[in-house]
């Protein structure tokens, strides 16, 4: 399928934007900046999806990711406050290995993209992508869609249980001791010795 020149230019710019901002995520100083760079990468991909006629998915990407990245940035600030990224930081481990792994993955996937023969079946001219998606979601694939909904609900409940102040066996700050097998007995399934292991911030370089 041939696209007009303007679309090609737009794609090129967006692709550069997506890759550069995706890469900047891991080499910027502030985690808030990192999450917004990731958001830029997502938005660029979303616009590419709109160019590919997936109108609903592209726009859904904007709002899904805006909310997700906002939550992410808030968590970053909660765990590590660094207004305006004054303190530079580089928190990595197994750095060389990771770079190698990333490059290998890219080469493998790029090889597949370049060498494999994919069928060329462009979109039919009369296809309305949004209607087709809607019919699919509430038609043939309704079970999948509804399962996704149920899983999301389960996630919500699980998340509230996990992150709430009260752990499974009482307050989280008390260290969640399971009850004894006999009333007043030792906690079930716990080793006898209670060694104090290194809590606190581990900030390895």
């Amino acid at each position: 399928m041939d696209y007009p020149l303007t679309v090609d230019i737009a794609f090129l710019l967006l692709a550069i934007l997506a890759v550069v901002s995706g890469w900047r995520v891991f080499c910027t100083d502030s985690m808030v900046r990192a999450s917004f760079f990731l958001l830029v990468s997502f938005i660029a991909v979303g616009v590419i999806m709109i160019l590919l006629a997936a109108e609903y998915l592209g726009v859904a990407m904007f709002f899904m990711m805006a909310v997700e990245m906002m939550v992410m940035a808030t968590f970053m600030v909660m765990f590590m406050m660094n207004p305006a990224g004054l303190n530079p930081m580089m928190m990595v481990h197994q750095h060389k290995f990771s770079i190698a792994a990333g490059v290998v993955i890219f080469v493998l996937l790029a090889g597949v993209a370049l060498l494999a023969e994919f069928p060329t079946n462009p979109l039919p001219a009369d296809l309305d992508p949004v209607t087709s998606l809607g019919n699919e979601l509430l038609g043939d694939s309704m079970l999948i869609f509804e399962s996704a909904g149920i899983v999301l609900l389960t996630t919500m409940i699980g998340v509230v249980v996990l992150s709430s102040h009260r752990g499974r066996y009482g307050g989280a700050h008390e260290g969640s001791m399971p009850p004894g097998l006999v009333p007043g007995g030792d906690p079930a399934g716990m080793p006898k010795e209670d060694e104090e292991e290194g809590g606190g911030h581990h900030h390895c370089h």
Partner: protein
Amino acid sequence: MAVSWLSRLAARARVPVFPALGMHGDTILHRLALTPGIELVDSPRHASILLVAGGVPPDLHEALRRLHDQLPAPFATLWYRSAPLSELAGDLRVDDPEALPEALKRLHRELMSGRRDSSPRLLPDEPPNPWEGLGDDGHGGEGMMGGVPYGRPMAMNMHDDIRDGLTLDSLTVTLGPFLPVLPPGLGAKVTLQGDLVQSWVTQLAPYPIALENVFHEALQRPVPIAELELARARHHLQRLAFSLRLSGLEHLALVALRLSRGLNVESRVGRLHRWLTRCGFFRLTAAGRGRLEAGQARRVGGIAARAAGLEEDLRSRDAAYRRLGFTPIVQRGGDTNARWRQTLAEIDHSLQLACRAEQEDLYSEMTEAVETPRGPWDDYRPEDASDILEDLLPGLEWDEALTTIASLDLAGVSEWPLEPLSETSLKDDEERQA
């Protein structure tokens, strides 16, 4: 051409004034708030004129210099009843409240037309602490904790969180003494987690407040009760106006100020009270936070004590007041909400007392002590009680903390009375403009 056209338009804008308050400077603000063509702004960045109102104590001069340098050019400084800093000796000083609005407007016009240069910077434009990072390009080093940029280490968890046990990184800052949302002169070192106040240390006590002359006279000789009660109501209305402005009810703040300006024995606050209830002031803004314990309430005295259920009012000891059938109004609760209900009830009560006292031409009879709007003044003047904030504020959100501070009258009473302002001139101001 285009530029001159732009600056001519800019010269006609409402004059954005940032007030830096010195001793007894806040009275002029009540007047400026009602003056057309003047806008009192909340941040020095939003101002074109820095108005230093009232004498600034020498130990705050350094803070005043820093504030002065925060205004974006072009800006000018105007000193109202205050001696200019030595570097700014040539600045305009105005002592006459009548002439102040016109002086502010003229200053703004001159700045915009380029006839007056922007005020010079007083301090070098450099960080208060040197860069202490590592490396050539100013980086703070490696690892999460990095270096110590500008003398400030990375925010760290030094305290346990007091709300939900999820310890977040805290931030410690120094606020005041010129922050317009705090009482004038109050300075504090505050540790915040997000917008939750983790700790509050009062470093600078607020300036003593000046009461109207009638309260000072009442300690020497009998004074007309009507005058005493009107002065009391005026004081409370002005505090109410400050709090209303803080909570975004500008028009009701102006209503309260106008009421306090033209207050006489016929005035009533019933309508203001109804408006406040209807717009949800008591439910949305002044919700029940900042509850005072009995001991704290007694220490603050006055409205705060009576709002906490203590029946302490020196007026009930005065025979003249007893003849008027005076009994103190008391609220239960002792929180922000109760304090504002108490304030409104007391304003209403004062106006009724004033009305009856004027009909019967009553004078106060007790001269050894007087109940000031700030609290009882017997052997001692009411003293500064701003250190109770250290117990009261931790655990509150920023908004709740500020509403609580605004609802408390904590500053001590000054030994000097307020200079009487002529009440008629302001009305003329407004009428002339309308």
